[in-house]
């Protein structure tokens, strides 16, 4: 099961601030609900984990993140994340290219990702994958923006820090199911599935 995603998030602050944060792998990982970096192996290799709670079941993916390239001129980062769930019944791979750029006077974070899932996660959750991945990335984008904003000292930064402190520590399947559902409903009535 493969899903290709292309997302754009408008960032507060300057392109350099956004780029600075993008290079902080631990920081970036913390933007992903339920994800964390557990160990830095060397300059470009990390170990990490993602926990997702779907109803009564908890799926815990553990794996490696490899930074393939960092292009300072383009402010572009390429990484590959690969993980297997602790029960050995599913695995996931994400090939991500993210860059910070200025478009029409706005600073934006753009990400192109190709996510491949195998095993039970694909069999059981395949049909929801595009929507779920989309929602996860929306949450990621929001956290990322807050992290960049939090670099400042003003009121906006303070609010961003508060929001970050309140974010859920693991991926909650029910909450996601609900946002996927509402997103789908909106799309039915001609609105955008996600904002």
């Amino acid at each position: 099961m493969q899903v290709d995603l292309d997302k754009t998030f408008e960032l507060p602050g300057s392109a350099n601030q956004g780029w600075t944060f993008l290079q902080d792998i631990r920081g970036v990982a913390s933007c992903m609900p339920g994800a964390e970096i557990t160990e830095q192996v060397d300059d470009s290799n990390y170990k990490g984990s993602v926990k997702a709670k779907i109803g009564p079941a908890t799926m815990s993916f553990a794996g490696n993140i490899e930074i393939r390239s960092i292009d300072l001129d383009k402010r572009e980062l390429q990484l590959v994340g690969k993980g297997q769930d602790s029960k050995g019944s599913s695995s996931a791979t994400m090939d991500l290219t993210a860059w910070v750029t200025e478009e029409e006077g706005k600073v934006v974070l753009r990400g192109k990702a190709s996510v491949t899932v195998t095993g039970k996660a694909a069999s059981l959750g395949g049909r929801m994958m595009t929507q779920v991945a989309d929602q996860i990335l929306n949450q990621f984008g929001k956290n990322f923006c807050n992290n960049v904003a939090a670099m400042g000292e003003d009121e906006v930064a303070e609010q961003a820090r508060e929001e970050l402190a309140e974010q859920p520590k693991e991926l909650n399947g029910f909450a996601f199911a609900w946002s996927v559902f509402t997103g789908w409903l909106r799309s039915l009535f001609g609105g955008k599935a996600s904002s």
Partner: protein
Amino acid sequence: MTEQMDKETREAALQGMGCSRKRKEDARFIQGKGRYTDDIQMAGMLFADMVRSPYAHARIKSINKEKALALPGVHAVLTADDLKPLNLHWMPTLAGDVQAVLADEKVHFQYQEVAVVVADDRYIAADAVDLVEVEYEELPVLVDAHKAMDADAPVLREDLVGKMQGAHSERKHDNHIFNWQAGDKEATDRVFDNAEVVVSQDMYYHRVHPCPLETCGCVASFDKVNGHLTVYLTSQAPHVVRTVVSMLSGLPESKVRVISPDIGGGFGNKVGIYPGYVTAIVASIVLGVPVKWVEDRMENISTTAFARDYHMTGEIAADKDGIIKALRVNVLADHGAFDACADPSKFPAGLMHICTGSYDVPVAHLNVDGVYTNKAPGGVAYRCSFRVTEAVYVIERTMDVLAQKLGIDKAEIRRRNFIKSEQMPYKTCLGWEIDSGEYHSSLQKALDAVDYDGLRREQEEKRAKGELMGIGLVTFTEIVGAGPSRNCDILGIGMFDSAEIRVHPTGSAIARMGTITQGQGHQTTYAQIIATELGLPSEEIQIEEGDTDTAPYGLGTYGSRSTPVAGAATAVAARKIKAKAQKIAAHLLEVSEDDLEWEVDRFKVKGNPGQEKTMKEIAWAAYNNVPEGMEPGLEAVDYYDPPNFTYPYGIYLCVVDIDKQTGETSVRRFYALDDCGTRINPMIIDGQIHGGLNEGFAVAMGQEMPYDEQGNLLGNTLMDYFVPTFVETPKWETDFTVTPSPHHPLGAKGVAESPHVGSIPTFTSAVVDAFAHLGVTHLNMPHTAPRLWKTMQELGVK
């Protein structure tokens, strides 16, 4: 009471053939008192569970069992390396291939068995499965059968590299299993080259699963003291399993006992031998305690025996009047990672060469190529007689396409091409001898019953209003009752079947059979056959099956073979008993055998009313007063090797309305006329037909096992996999004609699969017919609402 009334009363009391006797099995089933494999409990029994691969194609780099073994209650974790010393890490398949019992260095399909955990209970076993750490290296995945023989296709079966001679033919690629042909290619091609009309239609018969209510499982119990192995198993062929277990384990067959207890539906799913069975048996032999393995629903749909996955092209050469001149069928068969099809040994594509159908086809050619892909092995006959479902689908679909091309009604084109009753028995150009059939009159009966012309007029009116109404028609001929040992064997054993009947002194009886019921109602119907043959009440006849220690050897129940083969054995065994009974009666009445005539339940002296002996009296005498020189007792056994298959047929008609907004298909009417020859129990026949139609509806309208490019099976839970309930199921109208089989002792032909085989193309025929005026000739199954909605979008239907 007149003599006639007396005779009729006695006849009715027997509840023999032709009577809608209530099913003897139901009393225990409706009270929840059936005894299934998972109900078996034994002292000290352990449970096995499987570690399965999340990948469709990957190399196993390491397996770490330490954490699993450290869990309290875990007794063993077995991998291929542990089975190697016993040479049981691979096992032979029924199709002449080998299959990994536990993945040996590589996994070839998603959910493949990698290791087995044996623990105190199934919960500990499941927890321990999670603790087995397997490191994989992913390999390129092949799921598209059309790409299997590309030069750059990944090689799946490294164990076969360089072995270019397969079990059935030469292999032309590492992913090629076999090429198999029937008929005369040159002569067929010649007719096609010069034909007035040629039609050709590609179609994909999708991958489905029989999905019986009860999944597969076993309890293996090895007694280390006397070396006996007992296996309770969900098997449609317990005797064959015993032979295979003996061959694999080296235990003498006399020390292996296989018992099939009650089975919650088989539909072909329970014919094969699965890694779960083998590992449970090995674990029991090694540990010396009983070991139970029962798969869950996802394991069942994902790993034990899919059906179909045939990419077919049907071509007909005809004249302008629609008279068939030649048939050409080409098949690309996706067999998954191991060729584990359950077919008679000689036929790698089963009985696919019955694809000439009910029609007088002068010349034909069938070509089948089997290939490996990274999908689960199987290829079973899902409520079908070895690929006859595929054969019927391809011919019936192609007939519709021919009718459409020539603008001839689909009933008329069939009428023009039917084998005529005076041509019976009819030798088909692909080598079968269709024993009987009255196709023309049966078709007319069906058309009259539904007012076919009226339906066509209604369709015209609806089309004028822009509504979508479709009429499906199929006139199929099945081939069942495998089979004559000259054609059919499994592992070299001829496909006969058996019955052993013993009449007790007081006139009740027990019969043991080589078949095994899974819902067919054998305990009811076999007793009815004996009741009519011997004049003993069916209520007092006990039928036993499924225990290899007590039943005579038989090849089991699948392919609608029980009535055609074991039913015949029952009749012949009963007739042997009757012949002996006649001698005893003559002795008791002090007349010659020739002076006696049979009437319902007794022998009477011709022309001498009152001089008679009932079968019950004869039974008593058999144990104390037999003619000099005759051995006492009243029993017989028969191993019946059928002279031919039987050929039940049917005329099926379906009317659908398709919602233009949603693509939802509503089956307004389904009429099924079946001719299964002599009818033993009309109520059970109706029940079998309802069941078969339900499963046909399931396959045509919803069931599928789709794989994505990574080889993930998307649809292995009942959340996705369509099992229709009464909510979705249409109303069925059943009807019948009776054309007895001339070679079967009772004239019976078998029926349970006809409705499945016949209904599937009928649904497609109806759905396609709804769009026929828009130039559509075929739509692949399943005909779900989203797919039809897409079709309508493409066609611009508004």
